């Protein structure tokens, strides 16, 4: 029997309504539009309104992806998020039920900015083993909920949003088939991208967390250094496994961390910068949502054509990293 492959069958995304300009943030941070743009390539991001939760954005993206796939039913829902609705339970069951999918297997993946690639990998595994036939894979974040408003290094970078794909069981040689994968981690770097408070470590420490510990923190310089090198190594490894060279890649789709990281990575791989899909200027870094959001927007503009070869790569907290490849299929827009 041939092992089924996970094949991309639908795509969608969701942004909260309010765009926040650099000028609006710069005012309170003592920063400037020019400072933010030159360091990050970001001009605006979206912040969810009070009363919104990550599941709201996940449901919006999920609805579109199901419609695009031409199906109302999947047997599994996976949500990659750094900002779940609650520490317990997972966000995916809520999302599944709100999409009319009560009874489906549903769980979260916590791999921060690499979450979507990890979610794709585990979903492809479920399909390969026959445990699932159709999986809704969502990357969703309300990162604004954990940003430290006083920290200009992080509060200008991140934004809220969600992206989703439907994977179905198919064959490895058809357009849309996902894989192979390269995944990795390094726990030595756990302090470089972190929210220190709120977990067992702090709650059982006997002490109260500081105000800063309640928020997301990132060591920008150290992360830049590791992100470029880990993604470069991971993409080379996955290209090797796929039997592709960087010259075969039509589109590099990296986690939208920082425009300078994206450009550096493209240069390093010898892929022209214009073949790197970037939407960070208009949405910021949406962590686990960034890859499906970038894919959906590129699909909407018609940039992605059937048969295009895509290289996906991400790096994030953990530290974690991961890469995969696929050939773009014919997809409907929701």
């Amino acid at each position, binding site marked *: 029997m041939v092992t089924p492959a996970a094949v991309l069958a639908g795509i969608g995304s969701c942004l909260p309504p309010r765009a926040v300009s650099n000028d609006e943030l710069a005012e309170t941070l003592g920063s400037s539009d020019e400072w933010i743009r030159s*360091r990050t390539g970001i001009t605006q991001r979206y912040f969810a309104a009070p009363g919104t939760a990550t599941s709201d954005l996940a449901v919006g993206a999920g609805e579109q992806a199901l419609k695009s796939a031409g199906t109302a039913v999947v047997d599994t829902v996976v949500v990659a998020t750094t900002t779940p609705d609650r520490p317990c339970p997972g966000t995916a069951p809520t999302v599944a039920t709100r999409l009319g999918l009560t009874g489906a297997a549903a769980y979260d993946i916590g791999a921060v900015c690499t979450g979507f690639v990890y979610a794709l990998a585990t979903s492809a595994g479920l399909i390969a083993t026959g445990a699932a036939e159709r999986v809704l894979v969502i990357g969703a974040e309300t990162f604004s909920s954990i940003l430290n408003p006083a920290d200009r290094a992080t509060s200008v970078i991140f934004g809220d949003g969600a992206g989703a794909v439907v994977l179905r069981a198919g064959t490895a040689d058809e357009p849309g088939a996902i894989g192979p994968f390269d995944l990795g981690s390094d726990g030595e770097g756990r302090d470089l991208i972190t929210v220190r408070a709120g977990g067992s470590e702090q709650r059982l420490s006997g002490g109260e967390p500081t105000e800063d510990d309640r928020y997301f923190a990132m060591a*920008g*310089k*150290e992360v*830049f*250094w590791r992100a470029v090198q880990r993604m470069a190594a991971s993409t080379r490894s996955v290209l090797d496994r796929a039997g592709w060279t960087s010259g075969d890649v039509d589109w590099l789709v990296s986690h939208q961390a920082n425009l*300078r990281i994206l450009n*550096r990575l493209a*240069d390093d791989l010898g892929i022209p910068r214009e073949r790197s899909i970037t939407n960070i200027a208009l949405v910021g870094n949406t962590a686990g949502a960034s890859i499906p959001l970038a894919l959906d927007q590129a699909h909407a503009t018609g940039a992605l054509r059937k048969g295009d070869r895509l290289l996906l790569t991400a790096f994030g907290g953990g530290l974690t990293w991961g890469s995969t490849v696929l050939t773009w299929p014919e997809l409907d827009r929701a």
Partner: protein
Amino acid sequence: MTTMYDKLVDLMVSRFDVDRAEIKPGITFEDLEMDSLFLVELLVVIQTDLGVKISEDTASPRDTIERAAELIEEQVASAATSS
């Protein structure tokens, strides 16, 4: 000046849009408004170009371009002897 210094200057001009006329051996990265993030990016580029492992802390924004070139050369030399 050394080859490494020339290489640094070339990279700063070609990759970071620094005005060549502003770069002098005794000027610091900070003077050129290149902060720690720019510097780490420069070090990533150098590491890839030279194909040797150097440390992300090799130089700081308060170092002069000349001093940074020396520090990178020291790292390259020690990488060569340890391998």
